[in-house]
């Protein structure tokens, strides 16, 4: 059924269709509307046999989900930013225990300075926790990925994060096609736990493992993700057969066939990138783009196939490896091992800084002329930076940086453009 609804509501409706049995809720912007929607649906009796639990922290949210999942039910939670970091220990634990929990990340920057707007710093910080990470381009894809995520998680016995850009997707009202319960039931079978806490068949879960077996346990979690490299595209194909839509998969290439310049990005910014690709193509540029949907497992082979004939690759990242540059770039360059081409890392959209078509056009044109630095910060205000650097070197006790910059910028600091 077509609906014009908020992205968060679309996700909530998708989760409801997946027949969750335990949902843990803790508010944090910008994912809050998702759990609010689910709370409403549970309270109204629209989700049968489902427990909705208001917990006291994100650490508890995922911990409750861990208990529920280990006891054999389908468990879901959602978080963002500081919340994801606050539950970090439980994030690793859920993966280590092999519990097929699905969690939405409404992607948001991490403080300090505190910032509620979008970038990918949060989910990227937990990229190696053993969870599968899928990034949605649109609200429709966010909805679809959640349905795929439960099946993926349960087939592999591995938790899955579905990452969607905070505000840009979570708060955007867009047209989405909500599938019927029958269609979702046909795609997503009943949850059959691989391990379960049951008095009829007692097992101990979560024992200590020493050097004698830890490497093997970790190898098997890696192996599980390598299996996911095959399963993710198969599930996307099955999904397309049953729902008639392209959603998910490892990567999605856009006009890359003859491209000399290929832009790689994750999430909603791909929409803007594709528009810029279209307009630059009209001007004769040979440019294309690739959207990475599955960041964990990382699709090395699929990317290599798409990128190997390009002359240059621009990785547009909404996150920063401080002291290094890009996070996504590392994987992209690894996929191109042995192939000589120019690679550029562009850090963009941090803390909600708008990524405009104008800025991207200028950036990609610079890239085509190979005039980019190895690492570029898109739309960095050089005046602000150099003023602050001078001030800090001149004053013996320069005080807090962020506050000094905001003082200088004045009330325009509230702009996000």
């Amino acid at each position, binding site marked *: 059924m077509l609906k014009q609804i908020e992205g968060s509501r679309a996700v909530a409706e998708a989760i409801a269709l997946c027949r969750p049995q335990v949902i843990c809720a803790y508010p944090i912007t910008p994912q809050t509307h998702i759990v609010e929607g689910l709370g409403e649906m549970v309270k109204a009796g629209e989700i049968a046999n489902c427990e909705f*639990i208001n917990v*006291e*922290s994100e650490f508890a949210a995922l911990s*409750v989900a861990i208990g529920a999942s280990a*006891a054999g039910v389908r*468990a879901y939670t959602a978080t963002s930013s500081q919340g994801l970091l606050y539950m970090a220990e439980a994030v690793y634990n859920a993966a280590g225990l092999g519990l097929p929990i699905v969690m939405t990340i409404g992607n948001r920057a991490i403080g300090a300075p505190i910032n509620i707007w979008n970038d990918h710093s949060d989910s990227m910080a937990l990229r190696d926790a053993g969870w599968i990470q899928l990034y949605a381009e649109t609200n429709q894809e966010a909805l679809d990925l959640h349905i795929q995520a439960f099946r993926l998680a349960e087939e592999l016995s591995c938790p899955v994060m579905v990452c969607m850009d905070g505000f840009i997707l979570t708060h955007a009202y867009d047209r989405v096609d909500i599938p019927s319960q029958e269609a979702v039931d046909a795609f997503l079978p009943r949850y059959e736990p691989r391990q379960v*806490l049951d008095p009829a068949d*007692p097992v101990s879960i979560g*024992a200590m493992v020493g050097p004698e077996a830890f490497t093997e346990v970790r190898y098997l979690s890696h192996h599980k993700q390598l299996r996911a490299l095959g399963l993710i595209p198969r599930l996307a194909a099955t999904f397309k057969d049953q729902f008639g839509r392209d959603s998910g998969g490892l990567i999605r290439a856009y006009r890359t066939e003859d491209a000399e310049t290929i832009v790689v990005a994750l999430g909603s910014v791909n929409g803007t990138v594709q528009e810029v690709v279209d307009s630059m193509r009209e001007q004769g540029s040979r440019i294309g783009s690739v959207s990475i949907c599955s960041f964990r497992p990382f699709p090395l082979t699929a990317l290599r196939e798409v990128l190997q004939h390009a002359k240059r690759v621009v990785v547009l990242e909404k996150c920063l490896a401080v002291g290094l540059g890009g996070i996504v770039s590392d994987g992209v360059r690894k996929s191109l091992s042995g192939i000589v081409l120019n690679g550029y890392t562009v850090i963009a959209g941090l803390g909600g800084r708008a990524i405009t078509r104008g800025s991207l056009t200028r950036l990609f044109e610079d890239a085509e002329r190979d005039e980019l630095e190895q690492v570029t910060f898109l739309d960095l205000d050089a005046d602000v930076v150099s003023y602050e650097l001078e001030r800090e070197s001149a004053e013996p006790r320069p005080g807090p940086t962020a506050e000094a910059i905001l003082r200088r910028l004045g009330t325009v600091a509230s702009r996000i453009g």
Partner: protein
Amino acid sequence: MDQIVKFYQTGTFTVGNRLLAEGQRSVQADMHRTNSLNSGHRACQGCGEALGARYAIDAAMQATGNQLIAVNATGCLEVFSTPYPETSWQIPWIHSLFGNAAAVASGVAAAQRALGRPHVRVIAQGGDGGTTDIGFGCLSGMFERNDDVLYICYDNEAYMNTGVQRSSATPPAARTATTPAIGSSPGNVFGTGKNVPLIAMAHRIPYVATASVANLRDLERKVTSAMEIDGARYIHIHVPCPLGWGSAPEDTLKVARLAVESGLFPLFEARHGKITDRTPIRRKVPVTEYLKTQKRFAHLFGNPPELGRLALIQQIADRNIEEFGLLQ
């Protein structure tokens, strides 16, 4: 007790099982006890926690008709019971993290509701570090939601698994690795720490009790009572740790009994935030009798002894006796 028992028959203050009707005998005396925490685990000799857990979980198993799932915080109990591929647990058991046992248990309990299995009950358990410190947020959350979980804290008054460091349950003056017996006021600081049973009561949860391995029948009875109630329940069990306290392994019960009889560890029950029962002290002993059994307090008995701080500890015991009405 329904049956009149003449104490002289046993020669001690203990009421022996053989003198009781079958229905009144202890769970541990029952041929069908479940040995939930089975023998062969790697606890130290004289471990109070192993003893407390064995009695508590077997009693809970009997009370629930063996329909029990346990969630364990990281700590001694977890480590000594599950050095895989060995496990001492004969019941479904999960260990997730140090600080989240109460929340994981909430999740297990929620799953039982979702699955329509209300008869399957859930226990969370941890040491004092996992309960009063790092797990406190999750514990309070489980309490205020009144989730159907019995949380048992085995309190040995420090982080024993990591090598005896101070927790918020460490008593004043006690020597630990992080409150060493050096300087002008050796050992743990006076006026610190928290009383989690009282904090649990402030949540107005249906059942809170303290218990001690000094009185295992009382411990079993409290666990049984707790399992007859729905909602959030808390039992705080005092369990001596020979290694951390510097007491003799064979003295675990004696040390625990002296803590109770001196008034330092009051035994009581509370329902919905109100104290409903307390165990009177039969023969009050001075705190020095308790403190002298443990090397962690040895610095108090130097030459000359620290009379001032010993008096402060006696004051704590006397205040407990007065507040809880332990001398009747």
